[in-house]
């Protein structure tokens, strides 16, 4: 069966450290992968997109890697701040004619002062 897995346990880290979140998938051939941030009671906000032929993408303190052999994406936040505390969702866009965006359930990040 097709699955997207994100760690359901919250990630607690100290301010200033690098947070690393994982997205694993099985039985998909994604054209690209996206990361979204979701605050409690709010809609997801798009952060970064990485395509199947890209290994790494950066935006300010954010970095995403994509390994289609391991079927895994890593999402890094460097110099983390309490304001980075939120749930982070990964989403896959499948290749071919199937247009659906498939979301993971997200991992909650808590950055402590």
């Amino acid at each position, binding site marked *: 069966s097709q699955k997207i897995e994100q760690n359901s346990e919250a990630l607690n880290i100290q301010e200033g450290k690098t947070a690393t979140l994982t997205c694993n998938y099985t039985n998909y051939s994604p054209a690209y992968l996206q990361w979204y941030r979701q605050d409690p009671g709010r809609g997801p906000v798009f952060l970064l997109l990485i395509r199947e032929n890209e290994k790494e993408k950066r935006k300010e303190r954010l970095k995403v890697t994509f390994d289609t052999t391991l079927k895994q994406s890593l999402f890094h936040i460097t110099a983390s701040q309490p304001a980075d505390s939120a749930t982070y969702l990964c989403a896959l866009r499948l290749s071919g004619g199937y247009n659906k*965006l498939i979301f993971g359930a997200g991992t909650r990040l808590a950055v402590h002062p």
Partner: protein
Amino acid sequence: DAMVIQNPRYQVTQFGKPVTLSCSQTLNHNVMYWYQQKSSQAPKLLFHYYDKDFNNEADTPDNFQSRRPNTSFCFLDIRSPGLGDAAMYLCATSRDIKETQYFGPGTRLLVL
């Protein structure tokens, strides 16, 4: 600012009483989506409109319907809400079907 707006932010309805949630956008995007998200779960796509073309997901219950009277507005109608329909309902838009989706703030539905 161009944006996706959802009203109301919180909606309380009674078991079996029809309810309508609304979404509007100022982005002039072609595609509008409705997702259901339950606590600590992934957003689940219910259906989407590409312009006037309606695309239903195979596992979306018949109890859920949608209308898109014009480019800017899209409605989610729940004909007979059950307790299991209590969730956050998210509207999203994208310029085209494979482009980035932009979400509204969501409507939290409570069914009593």
